[in-house]
């Protein structure tokens, strides 16, 4: 069809696109909907429940019917509103939610079954037989439900995230928003103007009015041009502000390349978190329809949408240009549409208006005191029934515009659960109290819907915001708008037989509301949940207020007494891709690498995750075919010779200050202040509730200087808790804290030949047992003068050290130790062997320190000093903790070949295996090369008193069970002689 005059589409350029495989052409400036309408296509989708044929009713993001799938393959995007999809060359769209073709959808049988599918029907049936729900009913329902389909393939596009800060965020670039942005921009405020459309102007592009005697889009272009010159103003088109969060934070999505055939390697969309000191909500208004019998056919649209298609896109929605157009309206606004269409030469049948004193603005017939009471046309409107004074007549009609008044887009104003208030004069809900602080509604969103009113209200809002911000205003001249008749009368639906749709997408009719009323589902929320009204993709934008009015009529109450409706984020649907934007693959969260990572990689290490860290798990050697072989070899090497392992991941906190010792006495359950300079002590940390939460060593490097080590997992928590103690509990202590975890590469050198190895690199330091005994620490140099810290501590139970050098040398130090110790049998070992060594020694680690256990449970209650106060000391002694009988024990299988499985539960040998008889669980297990069998650690009731008892470890989850003997948790050198030699 040829376009009407005066549109904003670039008809000089042609864009090809397809819909359900059929090729069409449109132009830059078109949406998919405007281009399809221009091609005479009305039918674009099917409704959710009854699969009724549907066409667009709107020209904006509120569209509930014309949902299509854009693109294909991994880029297929379901449920896209054709009314906002910007046309580009090569666009592919397909209709959705039908079985068979869009024209012949066999699921439309549901429409025939509609009486059985009334509101809430599924709550009343499908209960028998019981097993059939998951097997039969639910799969059938699920298959029929849903709208479009995801491809099931990973989203191939890139998304970005960003943060912007401004003095004033203006939401919406229509009459009010442009005026507000211009005023604030000229005044020098930092302004962001966000517009969901690809073109600023809002309804000014759609209304067909004049400003200062020129087409309104000309003024829009002038303002946009001026705003572009202001460095303090940023205009963001294709950007939807979808949510208002606390303290002036807004979520916005910018569709960066959705309108491009090729994204060129750039991002698809960007999520902006905008922090604004003040905001103006100039989001406009959404027209509402009037339910009447069979009001859902393709070709029945909102009258304002018809006006928009005619003025902005130069198209009307009939299938043939000669088909007559009618308007059904309860106010003057509908008459404006008719007059404009008539002036553009569109055949206008007339305006059907229930008001007896309905006006006539010229160029069409007015059917005063009349209503539309029926329609015909299976896949598109062909005729309407007009009833006047009890007389009905059918009239041929190819397009019907419906106008029931306008609902201000109050959504963001109610995102903080502030309730909109009813304005009887405007027949609309306006933003109420309790809106986001600093958000000023303006223009149609505030009920000021006329062009002149809206512009003036935008200025008022800007002035208010500037006043709040302490910025002096600058003058703005507003152009004169034409008079716009806007009288209306409340008229909510046409009563009568048949089905009259209120919520199009979810197929909720006036009858469904009446049924909800009959069944006492009358509170608005019950109504919505019982009927699914307002739960469709438009979130009730086109339905809620009308439904409320119908319910009010049924209950005989006024609308505000019946309820109100609030909205939650997002304003329109936001893709999960952009919400979760950025790195979602391996870069999803940071990865921490140890200083010797690349060395370990070169050595062929297999890595494992520990917290955010990647650690070498074991180092397979040629000929080893199973990880156990490698681990056994590594563990044996430590017990027999010497092994080296990067233990940098343990947290390190540098503690300095005159009161550092006193402070650490309060942090650790055991005494730390008495530690001599040059010594290390093992320590336990409790939560204030008395439970154990971390352990590690504390080294005193100087009179006022300690280094605390934490477990890898708890480094951050311990630091935070220490800062809490320092700042909030004991602010008068002289203590300074700082983390140094990453600064030092710390290498464990463990095994009977560790001293020998270290001596070779220690620049002549005396490491003899006398000079540097067990639990000594000190500064030395290694490898020709590199500063280092040496700690004689042991996790393996062998003679062992940890040596720390600046992290940049960690890699080289590992290599040097390997070189220097080649003749000693030096062996790198990973976390698996580390685990074997510590289990053999009975040391607690993460599985034992899981936040549910106590010092008593791991047999260290004596470390909780009674001589001083420390965090958790008092609470560790209360009844429930003091009477705890579970103790950490060692476990070995009675049958040497049997397995020991962590996570098994422990039972007395002859006890029934159920919750009531559960006596504990296995925390850790491994094969012990030293013992020659699997061994385990576990918590067992009265464990200390049950040495040598044979118990049962049950693992019903995997169908295994083992007889285990209870032994001491110290499988190796229980006297601790080796580590002191």
């Amino acid at each position, binding site marked *: 069809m040829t376009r009407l005059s005066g549109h904003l589409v670039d008809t000089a350029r042609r864009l090809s696109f397809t819909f359900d495989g059929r090729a069409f052409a449109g132009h830059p400036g078109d949406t998919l909907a405007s281009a399809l309408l221009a091609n005479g296509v009305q039918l674009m989708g099917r409704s959710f429940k009854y699969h009724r044929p549907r066409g667009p009713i709107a020209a904006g993001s509120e569209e509930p019917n014309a949902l299509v799938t854009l693109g294909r393959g991994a880029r297929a995007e379901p449920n896209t509103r054709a009314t906002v999809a910007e046309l580009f060359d090569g666009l592919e769209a397909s209709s959705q939610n039908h079985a068979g073709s869009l024209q012949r959808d066999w699921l439309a049988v549901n429409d025939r079954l509609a009486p059985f599918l009334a509101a809430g029907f599924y709550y009343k*049936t499908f209960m028998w037989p019981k097993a059939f*729900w998951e097997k039969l009913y639910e799969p059938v329902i699920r*298959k029929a439900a849903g709208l479009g389909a*995801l491809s099931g393939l990973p989203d191939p596009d890139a998304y970005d995230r960003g943060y912007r800060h401004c003095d004033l965020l203006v939401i919406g670039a229509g009459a009010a928003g442009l005026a507000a942005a211009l005023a604030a921009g000229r005044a020098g405020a930092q302004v962001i103007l966000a517009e969901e459309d690809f073109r600023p102007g809002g309804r000014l592009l759609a209304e067909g009015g004049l400003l200062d005697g020129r087409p309104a889009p000309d003024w829009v272009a002038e303002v946009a041009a001026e705003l572009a010159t202001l460095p303090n103003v940023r205009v963001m088109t294709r950007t939807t502000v979808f949510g208002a969060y606390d303290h002036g934070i807004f979520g916005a999505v910018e569709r960066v390349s959705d309108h491009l055939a090729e994204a060129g390697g750039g991002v698809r969309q960007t999520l902006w978190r905008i922090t604004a000191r003040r905001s103006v909500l100039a989001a406009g208004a959404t027209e509402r329809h009037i339910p009447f019998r069979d009001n859902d056919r393709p070709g029945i649209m909102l009258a304002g949408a018809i006006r928009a298609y005619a003025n902005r896109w130069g198209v009307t929605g009939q299938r043939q240009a000669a088909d007559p157009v009618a308007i059904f309206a309860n106010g003057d606004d509908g008459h404006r549409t008719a007059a404009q269409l008539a002036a553009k030469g569109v055949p206008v049948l007339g305006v059907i208006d229930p008001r007896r004193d309905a006006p006539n603005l010229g160029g069409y017939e007015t059917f005063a005191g009349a209503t539309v009471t029926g329609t015909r046309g299976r896949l598109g409107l062909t005729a309407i029934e007009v009833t006047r004074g009890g007389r009905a007549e059918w009239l041929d009609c190819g397009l019907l515009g419906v106008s029931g008044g306008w609902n201000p887009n109050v959504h963001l104003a109610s995102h903080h659960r502030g309730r909109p208030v009813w304005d009887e004069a405007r027949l609309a809900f306006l933003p109420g109290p309790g809106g986001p602080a600093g958000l000023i509604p303006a223009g149609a969103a505030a009920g000021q819907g006329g062009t002149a009113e809206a512009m003036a209200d935008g200025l008022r809002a800007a002035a208010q915001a500037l006043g709040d911000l302490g910025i002096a205003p600058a003058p703005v001249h507003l152009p004169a708008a034409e008079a716009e008749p806007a009288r209306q009368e409340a008229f909510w639906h046409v009563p009568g037989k048949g089905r009259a749709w209120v919520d199009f997408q979810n197929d909720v009719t006036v009858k469904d509301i009446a049924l909800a009323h009959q069944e006492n589902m009358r509170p608005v929320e019950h109504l919505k949940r019982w009927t699914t009204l307002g739960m469709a*993709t438009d979130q009730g934008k086109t339905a809620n207020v009308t439904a409320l009015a119908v319910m009010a009529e049924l209950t005989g109450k006024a609308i505000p007494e019946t309820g109100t409706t609030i909205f939650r984020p997002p304003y329109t649907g936001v893709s*999960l*891709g952009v919400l979760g934007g950025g790195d*979602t693959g391996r870069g*999803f969260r940071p990865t921490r690498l140890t200083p010797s990572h690349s060395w370990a990689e070169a050595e062929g290490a297999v890595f494992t995750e520990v917290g955010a860290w990647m650690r070498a798990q074991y180092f397979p050697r040629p000929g080893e075919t199973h990880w156990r072989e490698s681990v056994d070899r590594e563990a044996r090497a430590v017990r027999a010779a010497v092994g080296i392992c990067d233990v940098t991941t343990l947290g390190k906190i540098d503690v300095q200050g005159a009161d550092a010792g006193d402070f650490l006495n309060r942090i650790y359950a055991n005494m730390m202040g008495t530690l001599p300079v040059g010594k290390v002590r093992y320590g336990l940390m409790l939560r204030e*509730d008395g439970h154990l939460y971390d352990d590690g060593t504390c080294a005193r490097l100087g009179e006022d200087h300690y280094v605390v080590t934490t477990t890898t997992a708890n480094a951050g928590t311990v630091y935070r808790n220490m800062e809490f103690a320092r700042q909030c509990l004991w602010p008068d202590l002289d203590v300074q804290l700082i983390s140094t975890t990453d600064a030092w590469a710390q290498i464990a050198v463990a095994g009977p030949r560790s001293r020998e190895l270290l001596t070779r690199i220690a620049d002549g330091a005396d490491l003899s047992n006398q000079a540097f005994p067990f639990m000594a620490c000190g500064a030395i140099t290694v490898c020709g003068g590199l500063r280092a810290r040496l700690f004689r501590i042991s996790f393996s139970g062998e003679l062992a050290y940890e040596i720390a050098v600046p992290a940049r040398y960690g890699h080289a130090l590992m290599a040097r130790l390997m070189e220097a110790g080649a003749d000693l049998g030096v062996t790198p070992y990973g976390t698996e062997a580390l685990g074997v060594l510590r289990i053999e020694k009975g040391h607690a680690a993460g599985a034992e320190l899981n936040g549910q256990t106590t010092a008593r449970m791991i047999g260290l209650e004596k470390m909780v000093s009674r001589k001083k106060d420390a965090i958790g000391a008092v609470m560790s002694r209360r009844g429930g903790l003091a009477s705890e009988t579970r103790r950490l024990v060692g476990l070995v299988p009675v049958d040497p070949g049997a397995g020991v499985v962590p996570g098994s539960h422990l039972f007395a040998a002859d006890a029934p295996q159920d919750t009531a008889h559960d006596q504990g669980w296995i925390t850790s297990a491994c094969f012990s090369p030293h013992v020659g069998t699997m061994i385990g650690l576990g918590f067992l009731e009265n464990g200390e008193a049950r040495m040598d008892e044979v118990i049962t470890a049950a693992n019903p989850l995997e169908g295994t069970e083992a007889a285990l003997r209870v032994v001491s948790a110290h499988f190796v050198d229980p006297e601790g002689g080796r580590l002191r030699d």
Partner: protein
Amino acid sequence: MRFSGLRLVKEALTGHRGWEPLWRDPDPQPRYDIVIVGGGGHGLATAYYLASVFGQARIAVLEKGWIGSGNIGRNTTIIRSNYLLPGNEPFYEFSMKLWEGLEQELNFNAMVSQRGIVNLIHTDAQRDAYRRRGNAMRLAGADAELLDRDGVRARLPYLNFDDARFPIKGGLVQSRAGTARHDGVAWGYARGADRRGVDLIQNCEVTGLRIEGGAVTGVETTRGPIGAGKVGVAVAGSSSRVMAMAGMRLPIESHVLQAFVTEGLKPLIDTVITFGAGHFYISQSDKGGLVFGGDIDGYNSYAQRGNLAVVEDVAEGGMALMPMIGRARLLRSWGGIMDMSMDGSPIIDRTPVEGLYLNAGWCYGGFKATPASGYAFAHLLATGRPHETAAAYRLDRFARGQLIDEKGAGAQPNLH
């Protein structure tokens, strides 16, 4: 009136004129034997079981808004009994068994769908912890199954197995877990209680507790004073506020948990998946929306709404786990107020005030607990003794040090 397919056919053919109100809207009586404060899932279930199982009469449920307006109407609808500790697991398994017969019992289709749940495993240490949990479930009579990586891949091929920051190494599965239609649960219990004579009184906010001589004698409400022999409080989210009327402080903080649903989509995800490492869980509703959530916002709140940072965090987790959802659109988000207790487990107990009973502290486990919570609370109210599966949910367990701390997070409610 009994609901059935036959009835539906009859009504459909006669213009639906015969459907009766799902419940009455009675005015409050001057006095009841038992007043339940809170017309949410737990309060309604309590009233239902008091009337149906424990033979109590003269019961009222007082609801400040509309029936089901609390967390029963704003959650992610998951039911499961996959707990670790002996204080919890038997209780949740009892709840699961009640779910399994609920719809027939209530004559209301709450769409209990046992589609299973998969808790993903990413490390060896996590597998050990889940094995301990799975065994605890089996020992309590629940079902549980441990899958390896291939097992998970066969079942959920669309997860990110090849480019994941947290590689999937297995999963703990409970096949009997699943989802239920949350509103349907509230309505089913409400209708069942109403049919057994319970007065459901909406728009009736309790503004005070009448306590004389250390015993509760009634409540003050926005609809006038109501006498009561016993008062049971089941107002999760507002427990601290209501119990403050009795001068009590609770080991509870109120926190907001956000939840999310996408636009409707054809069937895609046929189970419930939890991704602990990415703070994300998801299922798909019968209507087609992907229903998902993550962590609580983390600060005390009564505002029933959360903030953007958490929205992003949850969506990031979802994208990392299943990048196929990138082109689905978030339709709606909402926030519910959780009673976050100091050990992450609930309280069903008497209080120091004679006749005043408390059901609170559900953290985000409240929905799945609805049947057992109602049953156990009714048991306590009717008999004065805790139900055997809820015996550990005592108010004094904190002082005694007998905590039920599944996560081992300590007295830090926002970590549970």
